[in-house]
C-alpha cells in the first residue's frame, strides 16, 4: 500500500487526482490523424472506380478533399477552444447539448472501432494473400493486431503515438518512392494513363457514377478528425491541434493525388475498382521485386497505424462518456502509472475482436463510413451554433477558420450527397443505423440522463452564450 501511495503521489497532477498525461506535440497529432487515414490510400478509395470509373475516383478525390478540408478547419477552430478528451463529443456537449453529445460519442466509438476491425481484417487478409499457404487463416493475425495494439495503448500514449509516427512515415514514404520510381513525368514508359483512361471509359456510368463514388471517396481521408481526441494529452492544444490537423490534411491531399495518378496509370478501372490492394498491385505491375515488397510491407504498416490510432480514439471517446456519467463512471478510470483510460481500452478490446471474427470487411467499412458521415453532418451545424453563441472576440480561440460560413455550408451539402451515395449502395444498413441511433437516444433521454451530474458536465470557463 505504501508503494501504491508513493506511485500515486509521483504520477498525479492535481493533488490526489490522476489524469491523462500531457506529453504530445504537433508531430504526434499528425501521426494520429494521418496514421488513421493513410490505410485508405492502400485500400478503399479504389472502390470508387468501380462505382463510377477512374475519372470519378479522381473527381471525388478533390471534392471529398474539400469536404475534409472543411472538417479540418472547423474542427481546428472548435477544438483549439474545447481542448478535452472526447473531441467532438466535448464540443457537442458544450455547444449543442447532452443528447447530441451522447450521439456524437457513439458515432466516434462506432467509426473508430469498426475502422480498427477493418484494418485488422485487411492486415490478416494481406498476409494470407502473400503467404499463399493452404490452411492458413487470417484469425491469428487479426487477434495479434488488435491485442498487441491494445497493449501498446494500455502502456501509454507517448509510445503509442511515437510508434504511429514511425510506421505512418514509412508507409507514406513508400507512396512517394513508388511515385518517383515510375517516372511520373513521362507517359508511355511505365505509366499508360492515356491508354487506360480515355474519353470513352473515363465516366462509364456518367455523372450518377460520380455521385455513387462519393461512398468510397470518403476513404481518401476518413479519420483525419481523430486528431481532436488527443486534445487532453497535447502540451499546447491551441497550437498543436490546428497545426497537426492541417499539416495532416495537406499530407493526405498529396498522397491521394499521387496514389490515384500511379494506380489509374497502371490498372484498367474495371480491375482497379475491385482489387483490395491497389498500391501493392501497382508495386507488382512495375516489375520491381523491391517495390512489390516495399508496398506489401507499407500496406501492413498503414493498417497497423490506422488500427493503433483507432484504439486510441475510441477509448478516449468511451472514457469521456464515463467521466460525465453518460455511461457508468467505472469507464472513466485512469491508470495511475501509465495514465491511460485502461478500462475503456480493455472494454473495447473484446468487442473489436468479436466484430473482426464475425463481420466481413464490407460490413465493417460501411458502419465506419456511416458513423463518420453522421459526425461530419453534426460538425457543420455545430460550427454555426458555436459562432452564433460565442462570436469572434467573446472567447479565446487558438485558430479561427476563414470564410465562415462557407466551409460549414460546403460540408453540409457534401454530407447530403454522401448520404445519397451510401443510400444507393447500402440503403438498408443506412436505415438500420439511423434506427439504432434513434432508439439509443430514447434510452439516453428517458433513462440514462437521470444519472448525469448536470452542472458538472459543463467544464469550460466560458462567458454566457449570446441570447441566453
Amino acid at each position, binding site marked *: 500500500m505504501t508503494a501504491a501511495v508513493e506511485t500515486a503521489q509521483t504520477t498525479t497532477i492535481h493533488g490526489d487526482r490522476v489524469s491523462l498525461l500531457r506529453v504530445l506535440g504537433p508531430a504526434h497529432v499528425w501521426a494520429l490523424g494521418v496514421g488513421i487515414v493513410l490505410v485508405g490510400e492502400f485500400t478503399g478509395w479504389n472502390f470508387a472506380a468501380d462505382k463510377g470509373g477512374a475519372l470519378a475516383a479522381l473527381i471525388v478525390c478533390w471534392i471529398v478533399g474539400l469536404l475534409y478540408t472543411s472538417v479540418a478547419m472547423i474542427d481546428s477552430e472548435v477544438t483549439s477552444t474545447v481542448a478535452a478528451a472526447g473531441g467532438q463529443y466535448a464540443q457537442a456537449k458544450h455547444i449543442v447539448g447532452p443528447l447530441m453529445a451522447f450521439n456524437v460519442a457513439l458515432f466516434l466509438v462506432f467509426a473508430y472501432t469498426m475502422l480498427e476491425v477493418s484494418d485488422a481484417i485487411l492486415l490478416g487478409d494481406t498476409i494470407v494473400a502473400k503467404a499463399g499457404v493452404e490452411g492458413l487463416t487470417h484469425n491469428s493475425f487479426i487477434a495479434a493486431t488488435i491485442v*498487441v495494439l491494445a497493449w501498446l495503448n494500455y502502456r501509454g500514449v507517448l509510445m503509442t503515438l511515437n510508434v504511429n509516427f514511425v510506421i505512418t512515415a514509412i508507409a507514406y514514404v513508400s507512396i512517394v518512392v513508388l511515385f518517383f520510381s515510375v517516372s511520373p513525368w513521362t507517359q508511355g514508359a511505365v505509366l499508360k494513363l492515356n491508354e487506360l483512361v480515355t474519353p470513352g471509359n473515363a465516366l462509364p456510368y456518367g455523372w450518377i457514377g460520380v455521385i455513387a463514388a462519393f461512398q468510397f471517396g470518403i476513404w481518401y481521408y476518413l479519420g483525419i478528425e481523430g486528431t481532436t481526441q488527443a486534445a487532453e494529452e497535447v502540451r499546447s492544444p491551441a497550437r498543436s491541434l490546428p497545426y497537426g490537423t492541417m499539416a495532416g490534411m495537406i499530407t493526405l491531399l498529396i498522397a491521394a493525388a499521387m496514389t490515384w495518378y500511379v494506380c489509374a496509370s497502371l490498372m484498367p478501372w474495371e480491375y482497379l475498382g475491385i482489387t483490395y490492394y491497389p498500391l501493392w498491385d501497382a508495386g507488382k505491375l512495375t516489375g520491381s521485386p523491391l517495390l512489390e515488397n516495399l508496398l506489401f510491407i507499407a500496406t501492413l504498416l498503414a493498417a497497423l497505424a490506422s488500427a493503433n490510432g483507432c484504439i486510441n480514439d475510441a477509448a478516449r471517446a468511451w472514457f469521456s462518456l464515463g467521466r460525465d456519467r453518460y455511461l457508468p463512471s467505472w469507464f472513466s478510470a*485512469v491508470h*495511475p502509472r501509465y495514465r491511460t483510460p485502461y478500462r475503456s481500452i*480493455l472494454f473495447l478490446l473484446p468487442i473489436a475482436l468479436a466484430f473482426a471474427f464475425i463481420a466481413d470487411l464490407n460490413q465493417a467499412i460501411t458502419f465506419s463510413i456511416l458513423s463518420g458521415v453522421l459526425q461530419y453532418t453534426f460538425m457543420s451545424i455545430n460550427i454555426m451554433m458555436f459562432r452564433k453563441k460565442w462570436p469572434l472576440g467573446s472567447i*479565446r480561440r487558438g485558430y479561427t477558420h476563414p470564410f465562415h460560413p462557407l466551409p460549414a455550408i460546403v460540408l453540409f451539402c457534401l454530407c447530403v450527397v454522401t448520404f445519397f451515395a451510401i443510400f444507393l449502395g447500402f440503403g438498408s444498413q443506412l436505415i438500420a443505423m439511423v434506427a439504432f441511433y434513434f432508439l439509443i437516444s430514447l434510452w439516453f433521454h428517458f433513462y440514462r440522463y437521470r444519472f448525469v451530474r448536470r452542472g458538472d458536465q459543463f467544464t469550460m470557463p466560458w462567458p454566457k452564450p449570446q441570447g441566453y
Partner: protein
Amino acid sequence: MWMALSYACWGISIVLALWMLYDWFKVDTTYSEDMLTSSREGELEAVSEKHRI
C-alpha cells in the same frame, strides 16, 4: 514459416491479454475507486485560461 508465424501470433496475443488482465486486477485492488476515477475534464484550461480578450 507462415504457419509458425500464425502460432506465434496466437501465443503473443494470449500472453499480452493475460498480462493486461493481471495488471487491471492489480491496479483495481491497489488503488481506491475514487482515486482511479478522479480525472476531470478541462482542469488545465480552468487554471490557465481566463478568457479575457
